[in-house]
């Protein structure tokens, strides 16, 4: 299985552990990731607030490189994924826009290379029974609140999962031996950049998610988005301070939990790079009973 890999800017900065764990897990699962050479920023919200064509052309360039290579593009970051998906859909729907974009980026992009979310690939392209078979440190007794964020599975008609109650990460965690908790905040907004410009609003939104996860009995939260991670992890202390709560809820990229379950070295997955201490959960998994002998 070979895909073009688009890490995006966050994964080389705040979300570096997402990149580390993605590459490590892909390798362990036998997935060949071909990093797009000289990839550029997807434009994120800034481009798409500035100019429609710019917002399409930026991700189109990355997609075009992958298309020339004949590969679909796997994208870990939710925002990069949505922007890349947007250009894929637009060039398929509008031949004029396809022409304009190709002119602007001086490459041909026809939408043949598809933008795929990393979660979609891991949860749906692999047979989860095979993933289970590779687990040697099951996430036993680990209650995981799977948090997809508001962007990853929307808009509804483009999503790879249900927009209100997505299941792919839950199924993946189950395949790893973990216990996904039932909760209603899977796609609630984390406030995104509100934590920068209107911090109080952002913190309220963050706390709502944290308290819901806690109430559902989660030991940790799993996410698939670097911005959600920043908010839930880095801002966790601030968010709790308002109401005098200490949540102490470790937040993981779902790929980190996959790596732990597959028995990879925790340091190489980057689990020590979080604000909220992850060591208790990591220890629980690493020192767990190990692979159950299945009958």
């Amino acid at each position, binding site marked *: 299985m070979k895909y073009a890999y688009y890490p995006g800017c966050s994964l080389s900065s705040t979300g570096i552990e997402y990149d580390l764990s993605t590459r490590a897990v892909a390798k362990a699962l036998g997935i060949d990731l071909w990093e797009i050479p000289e990839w550029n920023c997807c434009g994120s919200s800034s481009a798409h607030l500035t100019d429609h064509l710019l917002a399409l052309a930026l991700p189109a360039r990355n997609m075009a490189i992958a298309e020339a290579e004949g590969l679909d593009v796997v994208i870990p970051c939710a925002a990069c994924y949505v922007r890349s998906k947007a250009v894929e859909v637009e060039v398929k729907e509008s031949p004029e826009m396809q022409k304009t974009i190709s002119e602007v980026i001086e490459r041909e992009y026809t939408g043949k290379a598809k933008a795929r979310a990393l979660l979609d690939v891991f949860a749906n392209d692999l047979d989860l029974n095979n993933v289970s078979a590779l687990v040697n440190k099951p996430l036993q007794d680990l209650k995981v609140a799977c948090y997809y964020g508001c962007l990853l599975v929307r808009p*509804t008609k483009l999503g790879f999962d*249900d*927009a*209100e*109650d997505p299941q792919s990460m839950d199924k993946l965690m189950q395949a790893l031996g973990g216990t996904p908790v039932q*909760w*209603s*905040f899977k796609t609630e907004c984390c406030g995104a950049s509100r934590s920068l410009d209107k911090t109080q609003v952002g913190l309220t939104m963050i706390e709502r998610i944290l308290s819901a996860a806690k*109430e559902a009995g989660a030991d940790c939260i799993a996410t698939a988005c670097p911005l959600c991670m920043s908010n839930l992890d880095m801002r966790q202390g601030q968010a709790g301070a308002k109401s005098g709560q200490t949540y102490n809820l470790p937040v993981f990229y779902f790929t980190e939990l996959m790596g732990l379950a597959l028995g990879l070295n925790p340091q190489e997955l980057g689990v020590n790079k979080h604000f909220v201490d992850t060591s208790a959960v990591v220890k629980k998994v690493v020192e767990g009973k190990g692979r159950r002998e299945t009958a």
Partner: protein
Amino acid sequence: MKRVGVFVCHCGTNIAASVDCAQVAQNAQNFPGVAYATDYKYMCSEPGQELIKKAIKEHKLDRIVVASCSPRMHEPTFRRCIEGAGLNGYMLEMANIREHCSWVHPDDKERATQKSTELARMAVAKVLNNTPLEKSQIPVTKRALVIGGGIAGIQAAIDIANAGHKVDIVEKEPSIGGKMAQIDKTFPTLDCSACILTPKMVEAANHPNITLITYSEVEKVEGYVGNFDVTIRKKARSVDMNKCTGCGLCSEKCPSRVPSEFEMGMTTRKSIYTPFPQAIPNKPVIDRENCRYFKLGKCKVCERVCPAGAIDYTQEDELVTERYGAIVVATGFDLFDYSVYGEYGYGKYPDVITGLHFERLINASGPTMGKIKRPSDGKEPKNVVFIKCVGSRDEAKGKAYCSKTCCMYTAKHATLVREKIKDSNVYVFYMDVRTPGKGYEEFYTRTTDQYGAIYIRGRVSKIYQKGEKLIVKGADTLLGKQVEVEADMVVLATAMVAQPDAAKLAQMIGISYDQDNFYTEAHPKLAPVETHTAGVYLAGACQGPKDIPESVAQASGAAAKVCALLSKDEMATEPIISQVNEAICAGCGMCIPICPYKALELKTIQERVQGKTIERKVASVNSGLCQGCGACTVACRSSALNLKHFTNEQILAEVDALCL
């Protein structure tokens, strides 16, 4: 010498605003065969028709062209008009210069006038080829069929029966009564639904002119107005209706329980059952899918306990074919499946229910004996949230239309909660409150002012379970704030939608339906109970969302139409049907499978060729069945089939007039 009169109508300003009608009339004077042409403001009015009649006499006109609107509405008007002046009604042509011209390009008068002239030119060319046609008479079967035994069907049947005609009601459930039987109270008077419905059910059952055919479905409809041949499948009840006394012992002793459809799954019924205690007929059926005997081959408890020996496991579905003069379709509605709403929990939260569930919860004969108890734990809810427009006015997940009844029944529900649970809080999330109807607005005002229901203008974005409570998050768009309500129970006003098999039935009967599978009336204003198929009428919510008063009114309207049809012994048939030129028919039979009305068949004729008598097959049209659609004339390879009034010669004359 043929003498054509052309009459150009202004239709007020509908046509005249974008077409120079006087100019069209003047142009028409030069068409071949035209002896007289004029224009007038309203040709369909009394003076307009007089104008035509007078011109026929004065100018010795023998055929007429009216350039006005679509023939759908006024072709019969003008046919009657020229018949009044002594012409055959089929010596008329209409040029549609309104729908086909003035309405579609209102901004270019010069070219619209030119186009109207051309349309009139074609009509003149055709009318020159018209021949007088005569209607024939067919007998009318004086018996009506009502499909659906809800309040609309019952009302229509009673009205027809009271006029002295025989009526059969076919109902697919074991009892008549429909959705109204499930409802507790009716707005805006709050009188008990059962108290006003059950007497009508009894009246229908006891009426000498009404036959109830319950637990049965229509399987095939053939024939035409005045003489429909309808095949009805009488499903095996497994109970002999003649022997059964309706004592109920069998249901009491039956060991197998299944969720009750009538109680919306909130309690159980037996496998041998009547849907509800006041059912009519009050004789049970065996639900074979769930019956132990039919599933496992063992049990027969009902047979053992039945004192009348009425249980008959060997019964089979019975197909009967009956002839009817008219059909009333009153098949009602279904409720929108709200499980597409993820934000409301995809139907996973037991205390998020629909309005119809709620009707059963407040009904004295319902699963809780009329005490409002929430389904999950049977506790009395204190905070009840109502959400309107669930599936209605929501193109993304539901239907574009307004379901019309929900504002009123939600107000009723809110009132009833406040009345029954004194310390309750009722919150109603709404988009608009729509209360057009006599006494409706007053009822709504009472709900808020007297009963203290709290109306919040805004949509609910999410419902989630938090312990025993349901947290309802939404927007109050009047306050401009987000609101959160801790609810014990949430009631959704789910949209009224067409029955799941509505399209199938429509195709079977041959009536049209809209994009939402509601049946289409012949005219939204002036023919609201008729369909485009003669002899088939509509009543109730199968035509679109309706409340009880409206359904009953429409049912009586449909009944009046049926009575008018059945009051005659014979009726005239449309002479616009296909005819076969046997001399050139090759007998290939290509036309037979094309005909949607099964009006064509092959017959054997004898003819003398070169002194010898030979036999050969030719197509033959059943004039009773042919609806004049013309499909066969297109399929016929030797042009032996020709549709009267739309003959090949007439159509070609129009084409020539336009193109040559």
